[in-house]
């Protein structure tokens, strides 16, 4: 029985191509290796704002730690402590106790105002330099929120 014409052509083609494919198999394997998806997810590109966020979170934690013992002295100080906690959550910062540089208890309002003003200035500097526009907006807003409380503290 004569095999169908197409089958004979296919068989002939295979005879010609098989040695070629075998000869090229090294190169094909290389190409496949290059195209193969990595077995693990490649690392995300580094966040250019990561250091800024960490620095802001640390600065907030330090001021919070310094003023927390005086939260009972004036409602606005308690409000500032709560504000800093809310801002740390907004930054998704890992909780840390912060390093408290103690305040002089005879000059609490003035010292709280000075620390908060310095903190707002630091946050503002980071907002100006932020790569992510939404981070810039968030930091600017955080600085403005501190400004609202320090205005109350002054009044």
């Amino acid at each position, binding site marked *: 029985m004569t095999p169908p014409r197409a089958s004979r052509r296919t068989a002939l083609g295979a005879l010609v191509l098989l040695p070629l494919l075998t000869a090229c198999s090294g190169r094909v394997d290389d190409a496949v290796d290059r195209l193969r998806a990595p077995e693990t997810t490649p690392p995300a590109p580094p966040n250019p704002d990561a250091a800024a966020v960490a620095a802001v979170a640390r600065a907030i934690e330090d001021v919070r730690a310094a003023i927390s013992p005086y939260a009972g002295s004036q409602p606005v100080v308690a409000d500032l402590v709560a504000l800093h906690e809310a801002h740390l959550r907004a930054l998704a910062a890992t909780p840390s106790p912060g390093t408290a540089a103690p305040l002089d208890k005879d000059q609490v309002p003035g010292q709280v105002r000075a620390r908060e003003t310095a903190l707002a200035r630091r946050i503002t500097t980071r907002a*100006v330099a932020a790569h992510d526009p939404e981070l810039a907006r968030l930091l600017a*807003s955080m600085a403005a929120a501190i400004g609202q409380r320090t205005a109350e503290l002054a009044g």
Partner: protein
Amino acid sequence: MSTSPQAALRAALASEHGAVYLFAALRSRTAPGALADALRTAYDFHRATRDLLADRLAELGDPAPPGAAPAYTLPGGLDTAAGVTAAALVAEQTAAIGYGDLVARTTGSDRSRAIAWLADTAVRELSFGGRPTTLPGIDPK
């Protein structure tokens, strides 16, 4: 919405024209006193901001920066001090959100200025009965 810095500056200038008009109208309805003083401060701020934005757009070579409309629709309830105060507060809260947008859409000195405007406006909100918020200038919606 275009996100170019120049488009953001143009949008901010258009808003300032409206704010200047509104605060002038609010002042004209207010007797001398603490509220009138606060309105005067807000009016001066928005007028100065408007001029800075117009200058900045000119510096950028904007051939036709937005001008003021002949008139703007005023909110209702301006026949009482409470109504005037409420309108002023809404205007400042709206302006603060606008400055927040400007912060996000600009860089460098334009962003620096927008941050300062946001901070000033957030404090001025308090003179119109606003309460301190966690994130002023960020639209909660």
